[in-house]
């Protein structure tokens, strides 16, 4: 069985942003180049769907960001 070298193992904290399935609001805002308040506004208007993880933290699925960029909010 192949083992992954210690320095190549990835955890949510070390996985590169581009490979993640979901992002925090701050990370999603950084990827889009907008203020995180704008992200909350988009969520409130249901332009972006989010999911809540344990403790209620919001996560934005990667697919939602792609969809947003393709549809330009329309």
């Amino acid at each position, binding site marked *: 069985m192949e083992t992954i070298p210690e320095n190549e193992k990835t955890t949510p904290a070390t996985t590169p942003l581009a490979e993640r399935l979901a992002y*925090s*609001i701050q990370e999603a805002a950084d990827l*889009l*180049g*907008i*203020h995180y*308040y*704008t992200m*909350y*506004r*988009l*969520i*409130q*208007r249901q332009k972006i769907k989010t999911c*809540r993880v*344990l*403790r*209620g*933290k*919001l996560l934005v699925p990667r697919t939602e960001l792609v969809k*947003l*960029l*393709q549809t*330009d*909010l*329309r």
Partner: protein
Amino acid sequence: MKYQERPTELQESAATETKMAFAEHLNQFNSFCDALHNLERNLETTGNDAFKAALLSSGRVVKTDEGAEWQHDVDLMKDISICHRRNAGEMEFAVVESVPLPSGETKEVLNSGHNVREVLQTFAHDQRQVLRLWKDDVTAQMREHLEQKYPGHDMSIVVESFEYKMSRALAQRPAQAQNQSRGVRI
């Protein structure tokens, strides 16, 4: 109630550390609360300014993504302004938001109507909901942060203190706000 209990030394130091870790969010949240309170306090004035600007019709043309053309009247917040257009002889007002995405800037009407005051009230109400969403998310992040940093310790009193302070910032007018908190000194 938990927030009336006396916090331990560890909880006090966790609160100080959390305040530093989330300083940017907390400062920005307070600034946006102040902006909302100012908008709510000056609703009449802003409405009158927008109406006067609409009568002059000298603002730049704002074209939304749907292709509708509006005329800029007054800026409300960063990237958000109140605009107007004449529709069948009647004046119509709208709150228009610009979002500068990597794929290009988008412009969208958030809400519109013929009564500028009502349009502003609806906008303020929606912003309040956005700030509540922000507050809930930040306190959830704090909870996660504290659980990772202080495993096995009950830090709910710390989170509740921040939650209380943020709720107060959102609820109160700037003139009423005082530097007070419950439970842990933050």
